């Protein structure tokens, strides 16, 4: 059985959005994903990390952890912050809904994660933090 695991911890700085998505893209390469699958994964990771930076930590510099694993031909990604948490997950997932229109957030983050991954799941507790679980089967 093919299995591989990795874990990263990085500061919640916006320049790490690019780092995080490229790291996951490189990690998934052994599964021979198509270019489109790689781009889908990069977009979903970018959305989740950006959410932690902007919403979770309100642009304070704290830690984000990213865990990824490969099992057979599936990629699993977890992105965790220890920030403010989400009060109403259902509301947060509505397309076009944003708590930060002042920052021109489009409210499309979760919609993009859902569109580009097979499955996403959110666990969040107010003042404790948020973890996003996502997975995608690589057809190659």
């Amino acid at each position: 059985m093919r299995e591989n695991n990795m874990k990263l911890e990085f500061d919640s700085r916006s320049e790490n959005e690019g780092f995080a998505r490229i790291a996951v893209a490189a990690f998934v390469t052994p599964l021979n994903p198509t270019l489109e699958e790689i781009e889908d994964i990069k977009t979903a990771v970018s959305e989740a990390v950006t959410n932690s930076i902007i919403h979770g930590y309100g642009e304070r510099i704290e830690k984000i952890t990213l865990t990824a694993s490969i099992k057979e031909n599936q990629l699993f990604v977890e992105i965790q912050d220890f920030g403010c948490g989400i009060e109403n997950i259902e509301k947060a997932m509505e397309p076009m809904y944003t708590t930060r229109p002042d920052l021109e957030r489009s409210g499309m983050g979760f919609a993009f994660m859902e569109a580009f991954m097979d499955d996403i799941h959110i666990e969040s507790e107010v003042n404790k933090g948020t973890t996003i679980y996502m997975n995608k089967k690589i057809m190659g």
Partner: protein
Amino acid sequence: MESIFQLEGEMLRILVPKDLDHHNCIAIRETADSLILKENIKEILFDFKNTEFMDSSGIGVIIGRYKNIKCLGGQVSAININERIKKILVLSGLYKMIIIYEQEA
């Protein structure tokens, strides 16, 4: 280095960088808005010829400029979009809101 912002008469061409994410969108937003006000811009053209990555932060930048320039009677357009950028624009609904030009020769 080629400037990101190019004034072509009443049109402002924004040469979108390789990655349009939250990190890169802040500078674009601020400079574009000051140029729109100062230079009497009637059209903002987002040129994606160098762009390989865009997420929902990029959508936020385009919608923001769309709102601002619509108030002034102007319009937003896009050019040189690859399949990936097209997918993001379609998914967000922006593809139907803005003018899409054919690839430049």
